[in-house]
């Protein structure tokens, strides 16, 4: 029976706590009697027969007819699936999306459906490399569909292949992929790693245009998204749900298949990262020391290669299919069962270790903008009800924050760092002054459409993702980061955790209370 997550009150006997530092980690001693560490729950048990559960979900969907009843020989069937930003790190083969799509194709073959397209729902993310598509879909599907042009990736900048479905009562225009819009049935194959994913968000962002996304990917909406992990208190999700209603009323029939995975992210020899520090065996300690010392002497490039080659032994914990909103409610129950940890009250300081990966750098460099996005966007938002840190409190992150960018994946991030952040770090100002220029830049558009680059506007969206955290925190400190890079982000650099706590005392006094969000493991703090 996996143990639930819990809050550890730090005393003098508490061992130092693990902090991620990009492609490395450190152990930090937190002040006794005023610090607490929030530990995630242990991974839930996975389903034994995943294929059987998928088939059962397709045959017994929620609030919809069984999939075989929806399949007709002369129909247009489109299967959309999440891109490489899920799961993180990538799951071991076979990927759940492959299992879902193979099950759907079996039924489609039995029904005699010939006109099938498979579309990677990228949104404004970068196009996946062939090896990533092969990993997500498996060689069988790739070899069968890609050479015939029946498997491709969504292009949010192709005017000939976008169509407007309708408009919400808030004036938001739903513009999506034309093939999806013209299909008789769309099946969406999803992986829900956190509560933010899934539901109408999958399809209304995954196959939408820049114009459509800009209605909810903006500073004002994201400042009022409290939090990303709580759909009912998120303006972003409210907007997406309005667009979903338009799609439901005027678009194609959508059959959603959602799955949840547990938190078993690290295989041996990195499995000690997921253990509680006082339960480390002699072998775990030796592994930690060996790995940490070696990583300190390893060039960044090699360390990244090692970490990005990790394939997680995630297990699927649930599969549900049918009508999108009904399916998503069930999915959220399973996600919260794994992630929710009850926590009482807020503290003055929130500390967090930033790992080597975020949703926007699979197989790539965690550049400074993504450090901000991961810290203030994702980890800060790992709460329900209210943030772990009080308003005006201090957020302390640990990450080397080197000034490195992947020019293939993140070309516009480089200019964003040099040009936009040199001018302002205020999301509202940058959205008014700079966003349009980057979004409509022909070169970025070309790289997005033909290469493997994120859309020109993407660094803005990554920055907006942290807008709520940025607004909430009185000060943000990065421990171990390159000082000039950290200052460019608008944050304060510190060499050690002790220095960071000393710097924080300017804002929160001499004896602040501290919460540490223990990563790895994913948790959502249910703060009361």
């Amino acid at each position, binding site marked *: 029976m996996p143990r639930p997550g819990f809050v550890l009150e730090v005393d003098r006997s508490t061992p130092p706590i693990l902090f991620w530092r990009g492609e490395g980690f450190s152990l930090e001693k937190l002040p006794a009697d005023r610090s607490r560490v929030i530990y995630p729950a242990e991974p839930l048990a996975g389903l034994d*027969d995943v294929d059987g559960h998928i088939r059962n979900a397709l045959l017994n969907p929620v609030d919809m007819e069984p999939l075989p009843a929806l399949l007709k020989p002369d129909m247009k069937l489109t299967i959309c699936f999440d891109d490489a930003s899920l799961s993180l790190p990538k799951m071991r083969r076979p990927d759940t999306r492959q299992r879902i799509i193979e099950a759907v194709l079996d039924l489609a073959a039995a029904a005699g459906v010939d006109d099938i397209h498979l579309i990677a729902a990228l949104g404004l993310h970068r196009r996946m490399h062939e090896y990533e598509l092969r990993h997500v879909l498996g060689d069988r599907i790739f070899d069968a569909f890609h050479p015939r042009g029946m498997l491709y990736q969504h292009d949010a900048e192709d005017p000939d292949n976008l169509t407007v479905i309708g408009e919400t009562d808030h004036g938001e225009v739903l513009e999506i992929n034309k093939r999806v819009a013209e299909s008789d049935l769309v099946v969406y194959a999803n992986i829900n790693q956190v509560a933010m994913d899934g539901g109408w968000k999958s399809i209304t962002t995954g196959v939408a245009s820049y114009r459509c996304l800009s209605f909810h990917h903006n500073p004002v909406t994201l400042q009022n998204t409290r939090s990303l992990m709580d759909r009912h208190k998120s303006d972003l999700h409210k907007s997406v749900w309005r667009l979903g209603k338009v799609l439901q009323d005027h678009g194609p029939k959508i059959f959603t298949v959602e799955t949840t995975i547990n938190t078993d992210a690290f295989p041996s020899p990195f499995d000690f990262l997921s253990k509680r520090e006082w339960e480390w065996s002699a072998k775990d300690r030796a592994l930690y020391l060996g790995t940490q010392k070696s990583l300190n002497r390893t060039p960044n490039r090699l360390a990244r290669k090692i970490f990005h080659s990790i394939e997680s032994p995630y297990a699927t914990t649930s599969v549900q299919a049918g009508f999108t909103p009904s399916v998503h409610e069930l999915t959220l129950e399973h996600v919260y069962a794994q992630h929710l940890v009850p926590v009482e009250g807020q503290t003055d300081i929130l500390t967090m270790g930033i790992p080597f990966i975020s949703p926007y750098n699979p197989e790539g460099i965690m550049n400074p903008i993504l450090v901000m996005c991961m810290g203030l966007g994702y980890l800060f938002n790992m709460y329900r009800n209210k943030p772990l840190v009080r308003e005006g409190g201090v957020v302390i992150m640990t990450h080397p924050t080197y000034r490195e960018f992947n020019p293939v994946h993140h070309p516009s991030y480089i200019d964003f760092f040099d040009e936009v952040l040199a001018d302002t770090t205020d999301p509202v100002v940058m959205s008014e002054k700079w966003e349009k220029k980057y979004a409509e830049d022909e070169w970025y558009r070309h790289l997005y459409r033909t290469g493997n680059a994120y859309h020109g506007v993407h660094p803005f969206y990554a920055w907006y993702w942290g807008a709520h955290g940025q607004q909430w925190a009185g000060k943000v400190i990065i421990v171990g980061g390159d000082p000039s890079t950290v200052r460019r982000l608008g944050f304060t650099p510190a060499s050690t955790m002790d220095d960071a706590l000393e710097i924080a005392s300017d804002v929160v006094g001499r004896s602040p209370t501290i919460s540490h969000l223990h990563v790895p493991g994913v948790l959502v703090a249910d703060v009361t």
Partner: protein
Amino acid sequence: MANQYLRSAQRAAGRAERVVRSAAKPLRSYGFPYRAPNVPKGVEVPKEPSRLGADYDTEWARTPVARAARGLIAEGPLRLLVKGVANPDVVGLDRLHDLSRHDDPPPVIFAPNHHSHVDTALMIRSIPLCWRRDLVVAAAADYFFDKHWKAALSALSLNAIPIDREVTGRKSSDRFRDLVADGHSLLIYPEGGRSPDGWGQEFKGGAAYLAGRTGVAVVPVFIDGSGAIFGKGMKRPKPGRTKVVFGAPLRPADGENTRRFNARIEAAVTRLGDEALTDYWTATKRAAQGVSPKLTGPEYNGWRRQWELGEHRKLGAAGLRRRQQRRWPDLG
């Protein structure tokens, strides 16, 4: 001069004969029990029960020492042989993930088609290590266990156990059940033997029967290209490329009899065969419509059947070898 040498040789031979005779004399003087007894006239000696064929006892081949020796054989000569002769492309192992992810994966029955002696070595090298360690190969009792040396070699190197080709007798069946209970997985060729003409044969019910009796899953497997490497009737192997396609595990449904389950296994291998030569989606559609090309080939006989086999092989791994041959002169 030559006569002189000849005489010397004769003398030496005479001396040697004398020595041997004098040495053998005491032995000849000893009788039974130092020598075999004479059978009295009019007495018929009952024949000893055969210890070959289906009765060969292979228990010794599963002792720790024999397992270690087999491990060395599999990682050494067998690996080199398979790589050098068959160069396999193994696909579809992801379909076994739900079983192989366990620390102690449950035993299964692998049921491939059979075209060549290379198939067993190919399968041993292609099956994931978690099952390979405890893999038992069902080998034809009348072929691999008809002589002591062949039986011992098969048992040691392949962990083979004898099975009757035509019927799965109660004794064989009990033996397999006990092996599965001990955690051993089985490799059984449902066709019963190598293909006589390059096309497949109808599946016999052994694998389906054993799965029903033991409750383990059957993994259908299609091997492509091995017939062109060392098919029945070939005098020496002709190195080439092969493809091994693993399918999703099958279990007998509630109330499904052996005959129907066997038909399902055959259909699964047929679909994998189509997938190996075309692609996943084409094979899936044809299987759903019931028009997958049969493993047993066209209905007609004679030269047209052989002709079509050549065309068929061009599509697969064997054809790939030929297509990749360099025909152009190297002009620098």
